[in-house]
C-alpha cells in the first residue's frame, strides 16, 4: 500500500511524518504547479470549486509515482468539501484508476467505522505508537504556523532580498527531518532566531493587510498565486486569519469555545452574520471586523470561484467595510487566474491603503471601498 494525500500549504510535512513514523509507505504528490492544476481542471466538473480540482491533479500525479491509496478528509456539510472524496472517487474510477480511498470524517454510523479505517491505514500498531505519531505531527503543525506567521510579518523588512525565504526553505528541511516534538521545537527556535537576524526595521510606508477566506485558497500559495508574498514585496505586513493548526484545534480537538457565543470571531461577526454558513464564511466576516478593530489598513478575501460560503461572506463584506471604514478586496481565483492581473490589482490596493494612511484616513477614518472583481474569468 502506497498512500498519498492532497496538498494544502505545508500540510504534507506533518502528515508525511505521522504516516512514515507508523510505517506507512507515503507518496507526497509533486508540489502544486501548472501541470497539477491543468490535469485536475481537465477531469473535474467545470463548476466544482478549485480545491477539488487541485486535489485531483495531486492524485493523478502521485499515481505516476506509484501511489495506490488516497488519504483524504471528509465532512458533513454544508460546504462542498465534505463531498469531495465521493466525487473524486467516481472521476478516478471512470479514468480507470483503481485508487483506494480512505476518507477520514465524523462517522455517520458507528465509531467503529472510523476505527476500521485507521486500522486499514496503520495495521496493528499499538495505541502508544499512534499517539506518539499524532503528537509529533501536532507539534509540527503548530511550529509551521508559528514560523510562517513571522515570515508574513518579516518578509517586507528583509535586509537582503530573498533572505527570509532562504531561511524558510532551510526551516522546512529541518522540521521535515525532526523525529520528536523536542526536535521540532529546537528547529523552530533556530528558525525564529535566523528570521530575526535577516529582518531590518519596518520599511517606509508600511501598511498592514489581513487575509481572510477559504482555507485551501489562503493556505496554498500555488493556488492563490502567492498573494501573501506579493503583498510583502509591495511593502505590506500580512496577517493571516486562517491557519491549519487553528483549524485542527477547532474541528478535531475538543473545542474550547463550546459555548459558541464566547468565540471572539463569532461575536465580532454577529452584527453582520449570526449563523454559520459552512466552510470559513462566518470566520471571514468575523475576522474582517476584527482586523478593522485592530487597526489594520485593509483586508483581502481569497475564495475559489463558485465557493458557496464565501459568496455569502462576499455579499456581506461591503457592509462591514462601510461601517468600519476598512477597504476590502475580494479575490476570486481558479485555474483561469492570471498573475499579471493579480499583481496589478494588489499594487492598486496597497497604493490605496498607503494613500489613505497619508491622508489620515487610516483605520476607522472615512468610508471604505470595496472592489470585488474576480481576477480570472467571470463567466464561462
Amino acid at each position, binding site marked *: 500500500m502506497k498512500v498519498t494525500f492532497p496538498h494544502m500549504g505545508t500540510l504534507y510535512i506533518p502528515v508525511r511524518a505521522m504516516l512514515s513514523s507508523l510505517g506507512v509507505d507515503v507518496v507526497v504528490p509533486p508540489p502544486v504547479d501548472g501541470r497539477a492544476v491543468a490535469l485536475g481542471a481537465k477531469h473535474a*466538473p467545470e463548476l466544482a470549486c478549485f480545491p477539488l480540482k487541485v486535489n485531483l491533479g495531486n492524485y493523478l500525479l502521485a499515481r505516476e509515482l506509484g501511489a495506490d491509496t488516497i488519504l483524504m478528509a471528509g465532512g*458533513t*456539510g*454544508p460546504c462542498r468539501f465534505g463531498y469531495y472524496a465521493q466525487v473524486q472517487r467516481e472521476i478516478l474510477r471512470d479514468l480507470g484508476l483503481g485508487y483506494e480511498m480512505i476518507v477520514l470524517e465524523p462517522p455517520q454510523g458507528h465509531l467503529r467505522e472510523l476505527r476500521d479505517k485507521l486500522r486499514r491505514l496503520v495495521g496493528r500498531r499499538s495505541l502508544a505508537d499512534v499517539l506518539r505519531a499524532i503528537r509529533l505531527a501536532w507539534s509540527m503543525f503548530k511550529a509551521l504556523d508559528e514560523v510562517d506567521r513571522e515570515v508574513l510579518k518579516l518578509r517586507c523588512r528583509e535586509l537582503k532580498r530573498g533572505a527570509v525565504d532562504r531561511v524558510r526553505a532551510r526551516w522546512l528541511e529541518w522540521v521535515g527531518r525532526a523525529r520528536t516534538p523536542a526536535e521540532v521545537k529546537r528547529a523552530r527556535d533556530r528558525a525564529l532566531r535566523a528570521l530575526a537576524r535577516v529582518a531590518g526595521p519596518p520599511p517606509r510606508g508600511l501598511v498592514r493587510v489581513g487575509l481572510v477566506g477559504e482555507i485551501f485558497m489562503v493556505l496554498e500559495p500555488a493556488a492563490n498565486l502567492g498573494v501573501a508574498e506579493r503583498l510583502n514585496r509591495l511593502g505590506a505586513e500580512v496577517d493571516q486569519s486562517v491557519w491549519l493548526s487553528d483549524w485542527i484545534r477547532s474541528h478535531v480537538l475538543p473545542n474550547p469555545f463550546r459555548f459558541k457565543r464566547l468565540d471572539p470571531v463569532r461575536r465580532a461577526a454577529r452584527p453582520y452574520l449570526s*449563523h454559520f454558513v459552512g*466552510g470559513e464564511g462566518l470566520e471571514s466576516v468575523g475576522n474582517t471586523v476584527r482586523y478593522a478593530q485592530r487597526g489594520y489598513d485593509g483586508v483581502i478575501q481569497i475564495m475559489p470561484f463558485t*465557493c458557496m460560503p464565501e459568496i*455569502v461572506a462576499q*455579499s456581506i463584506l461591503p457592509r462591514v467595510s462601510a461601517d468600519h471604514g476598512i477597504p476590502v478586496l475580494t479575490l476570486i481565483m481558479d485555474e483561469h487566474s492570471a498573475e499579471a492581473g493579480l499583481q496589478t490589482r494588489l499594487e492598486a490596493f496597497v497604493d490605496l491603503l498607503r494613500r489613505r494612511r497619508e491622508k489620515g484616513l487610516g483605520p476607522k477614518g472615512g468610508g471604505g471601498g470595496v472592489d470585488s472583481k474576480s481576477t480570472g474569468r467571470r463567466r464561462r
Partner: protein
Amino acid sequence: MGGPRVGIPRGLGFFEYHVLWQGFFEGLGVEAVASPPTNRDILDRGVRAAVEEACLPVKVYFGHVMELAPRVDLLFVPRLVRMERRLYTCPKFLGLPEMVKSCAGRLPPLLCPVFDENRRGSKAAAAFAQVASRLGVGLARARRAWRQARARQARYRAVLAQGWPRDQALAAARGGALPQASLRPKRSPDGRLKVAVLGHSYLLYDPHLNLGLLARLERLGVEPITGDVLPEERVLQAADSLPKRIFWSFARRTMGGGLYLLERGGVDGIIHLVSFGCGSDALITDLLERFARRRGRLPFMLLTLDEHSGEAGLQTRLEAFVDMIRRRRAERAAGWAG
C-alpha cells in the same frame, strides 16, 4: 385589518413551504402577501443587486424582496437551515437574511425565524412563536396557528404525492374537497413520451426562470414527470444507496430521483434542470451524468439556467432531445419487428 402587512418573497424556500407560511400568518390573523410571480423586472433588479457570483435563484430572490419592500411593513425572510434531520439546504440559504440586508437596499424590518428541523421541529415552532410575538400575537394563538399550518402543509404534501396538480392540492390543503379520484389527470394513457424533469423546486415551479420548460415539453407532445411525483420513499432509498449520504436536501432528492429512474425506467429520458452557480448541483450533476453514462440506457440532458438564458436556444435543445428520444424509440421498435 389595521395590523402590519407582511411580505413573503416568492423564491427559494417559498415553493416548499408557502402553504405552511401563509397558513401560519392566516392563523395569526396577520395579512401576508406574496410577491407576484417572477417577471423580467423582478429578475433584472435582483441581478443588479446581488454579487455577480451568487446563483440565479438567490438573485431572483433579491428581486422579489425589492419588489415587496415599498409595499409592506415587514419582510418575511426565514433562515432555512435544515428541512430534515442532518441534511442542510445550502450555505446561501443559511446566510440569506444577512445577504438580503446587505444587498437589497433600503428595506422594512425583517422577520427571520430560524427554520431548523434537526430536532423534530421544536426549534422551528419556537422561532415562529417569536415571529408571532413581534407581530403582537400571544403564545397560545401562535401555537394554534403553527399546529394548523403544519397540518395544512402535511395535507398539501400528501395530496401532491397522490399525483394531483399543485392548484388542486392547494385547494385541498385549505380544507376543500378533492374531486373524485377518477378525475385525477391520468399519466400518458396514449403512449405519449414521458420525460422526467429533476431539479430544485424553486427552478421547476418558477416558469419565468425556467423559460416555461414544462409547458414547452407539453407542446412537444411530451409529458413532463417532475421529481416530486415519484414515490418518495423509493427515491430517498435510491439516494442513500450511495457510499456516502448527500447532505443537501434538494441535491439528495435530485440524485435519488435520477438513480431511481435509471434503475427502474418508466420514462423515456431525464432532464436535469440546474442554475448556473449552484454549488451542490455542480457536483451532483457530474455524478448523475456519470451514473447515467455507465448504465447507458436513458437519454440524459443537462439544462443550465442563468440570467442570459434565451428561449430560442432552449427550444432548439428541447426539440433535438425529444427527436433523439423518438428516433431511438422507433429504432428499437424496428429492431424488435425485424
